């Protein structure tokens, strides 16, 4: 477990910290409309995760990443012990990332072969990085919709999911692949079986979210994500189809274009383009080299 924690710690670092020298030559990026808090866990179980996130300034990095966004109201983002894997965003309430979710990522990542021979070649680090960023951006997207009074057609949780995916695709081909593979892996890795009343959930099934991610990625760049569609939809892993079926592939260019249109018309007017260029020029997946 220690070795895994080390890997996870590296992943978080790679994710967010990009460490201090990464910003040495650039003006500091910080969105003052975003408040952050690391809430100490109530017991010993999540102390390591709490300390790790705090030491690596994960929330400070999120605040830097969102620097270009002009928000009319403050958004509070906190990491804490929730008593469950997640707390979905409620209007006017904080964005919450749960220690329990991070622990779950660690657990699931342990099931990935160390040599990267898992489904679609995803590595442990990619899986944790992608899934963690997906969760943070998805939750934050819900808050951004709320604060910007954005008109949302479709289920809000899906909307936040798709906006998170859209953002993850904007950071260059290497980062986009790592992030999308990692996020998708965790959707696929869920072994939850949905029956009956489960379908009343306001969130889609993990399988639906998985294919949503494959589709928006493939629609974004069918060459970069060419392995997400094999022309027949019959590539399998552990007995499950892991690529897009032709019936869905048909829609993917439109799904990405529609998401971009929504972003361009509803979010981009609230973005400082100069700061956006700074954000896009950063290497957000730079390896962590320690404090």
């Amino acid at each position, binding site marked *: 477990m220690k070795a895994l924690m080390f890997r996870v710690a590296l992943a978080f670092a790679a994710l967010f910290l990009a460490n201090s020298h990464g910003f040495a030559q650039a003006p500091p990026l910080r969105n003052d409309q975003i408040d952050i808090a690391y809430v100490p866990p109530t017991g010993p179980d999540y102390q390591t995760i709490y300390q790790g996130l705090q030491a690596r300034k994960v929330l400070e990095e999120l605040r830097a990443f969102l620097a270009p966004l002009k928000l009319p109201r403050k958004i509070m983002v906190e990491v804490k012990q929730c008593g469950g894997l997640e707390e979905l965003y409620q209007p006017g309430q904080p964005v919450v990332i749960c220690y329990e979710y991070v622990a779950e990522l660690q657990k699931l990542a342990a099931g990935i072969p160390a040599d990267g021979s898992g489904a679609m070649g995803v590595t442990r680090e990619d899986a944790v990085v992608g899934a963690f960023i997906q969760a943070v951006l998805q939750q934050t997207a819900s808050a951004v919709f709320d604060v910007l009074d954005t*008109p*949302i*057609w479709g*289920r809000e949780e*899906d909307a936040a999911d*798709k906006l998170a995916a859209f953002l993850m695709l904007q950071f260059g081909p290497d980062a986009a692949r790592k992030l999308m593979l990692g996020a998708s892996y965790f959707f696929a890795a869920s072994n939850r079986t949905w029956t009956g009343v489960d379908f009343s*959930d306001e969130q889609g*099934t993990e399988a639906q979210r998985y*294919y949503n991610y494959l589709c928006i990625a493939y629609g974004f760049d069918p060459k970069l994500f060419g392995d997400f569609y094999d022309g027949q939809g019959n590539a399998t892993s552990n007995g499950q189809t892991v690529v897009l079926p032709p019936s869905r592939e048909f829609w993917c260019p439109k799904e990405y274009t*529609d998401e971009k249109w929504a972003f361009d018309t509803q979010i981009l007017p609230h973005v400082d383009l100069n700061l956006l260029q700074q954000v896009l020029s950063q290497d957000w997946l730079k390896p962590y080299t320690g404090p």
Partner: protein
Amino acid sequence: MMESRTSVWKRRLRRATMAAVAIGAALGVAQARAQTTTPAPSTPASTTSTPAPTTAAPTPTLDNAQIQIFYSPPQSSYLQPLYQRLRERQYLEQLKKFLSPLIIPPGITLKITTKECGTVNSWWSGRQDGLFLCYEWTDYAERVAPEVPTKNGMTHEDAILGAFLQVTFHELGHAMFDIYEVPIFGREEDAADQMAGFILSQFGPDVARRTFPGVVYIWRQLATSDGKWTQDDFSDIHGYPLQRAYNYLCMAYGAMPAEFQYVVDNGYLPKERASQCGREFVQIRHAFAKTIYPHIDVAKMKVVQSTQWLLPEGSEIPPK
């Protein structure tokens, strides 16, 4: 005892008639109610004590040259009665009148066609070909609708009515999203369901009570008859039918919690989801107000509001 073929068709014809009449009626009511829930332009109050002379504006007619309608004759004989009934009841003519307040951008024509599709479906085929409403969908609803009222009072006719209204407004949702270039952050098929649910919720409690259970019933039927969904099936752009059933229940409860409290009390809608339905409905209403309402001709809307659409059961065919 089996019914004779003739009596079956007579019964089908009667039921289809009821559905068609109610549809024409419901359309207008929906629009009128929508007006009351979306922000209307305000007029500054006069500062003078003497009312200024006013000139009565001509009453606009409920027409829209950019909406075209077509009844395509079915090849299959079993769909002929439905086709005939829709024509006689002027379903599309009423729909066109109801939609006439829509301000459609220049160069775009909204085509609406009823036809035999070869599949239980309906779809928006883009600006060139327009909207196709398939006879088979209503025929399917007829076949799976319960023969006797359910314990909650939903009748055979309610199920058909709900299914027909749902598919009409769902596909019109796609049409409006396309024509008005509406930004959609979520999944478009869910968005189109929300459009349908929002319009259905604007009919008032009586119509909502009669239509929503029918919609939910049809989707629950499809969840049963569609077989067990596996992981791969979740790649579909549509939600699983049971998800759609719960979404419609949630919209109904979110719009009219008092009217639909029984769906929570009886366990049809879990409390955990029910607690979110008010918020979900506000989200939909907000999206409608921001993205659709600006494309509505208010003067025509007032005429639509004053039109009697809700024809009672057994009423005569509307005059041409």
